[in-house]
């Protein structure tokens, strides 16, 4: 069963614009993680936000977490063509050995 669900499923923007992706989850969490996947490759961890944090920054990435709404957002500012990839949120299921459960992802296309 999916723990995180990303929205939108696909996003196409122009280079230089900002990209925002959202993630909703179902159960209690102690952290939420965002990953990136280039086409046909493995996933790479981007950023982790803990349940007691509301916002976190890393370079051009900004992640917010709203535990009352069970949702998170990933903002990529000043996007580049190299940001073209799929982005996934993931949560460790506290009720199940902290299994890491992923959503279906957002495919981001940044047009040059």
């Amino acid at each position: 069963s999916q723990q995180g669900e990303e929205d939108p499923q696909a996003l196409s923007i122009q280079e230089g614009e900002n990209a925002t992706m959202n993630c909703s989850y179902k159960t209690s969490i102690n952290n939420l993680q965002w990953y990136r996947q280039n086409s046909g490759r493995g996933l790479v961890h981007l950023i982790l936000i803990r349940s007691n944090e509301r916002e976190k920054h890393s370079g051009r990435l900004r992640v917010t977490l709203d535990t009352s709404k069970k949702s998170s957002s990933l903002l990529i500012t000043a996007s580049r063509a190299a940001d073209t990839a799929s982005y996934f949120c993931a949560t460790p299921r506290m009720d199940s050995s902290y299994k890491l459960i992923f959503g279906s992802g957002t495919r981001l296309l940044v047009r040059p």
Partner: protein
Amino acid sequence: DVKVTQSSRYLVKRTGEKVFLECVQDMDHENMFWYRQDPGLGLRLIYFSYDVKMKEKGDIPEGYSVSREKKERFSLILESASTNQTSMYLCASRSPVDTEAFFGQGTRLTVV
């Protein structure tokens, strides 16, 4: 540099064959995961191992088994490959439970 290595990038097998997918990590991580990834479905957890010889089923374990005889190696076994197991398979590891996961490069398996 941390590393998770999957034994093959591409694999073609025949229906009914027994298939072994191998994953090795060099980070002394307790937790290891096997996911499959299909278009539009995101990453779905097949099996999870939280320590040597310990395993738990994920969301889609049917048709698969796993082996973890040594801490660094986690094998996924398709007992009798079927065409609906054609997919991208991703291995990951992490430690401790509430941190990020590291992924291998993926194995694209085609069952004909």
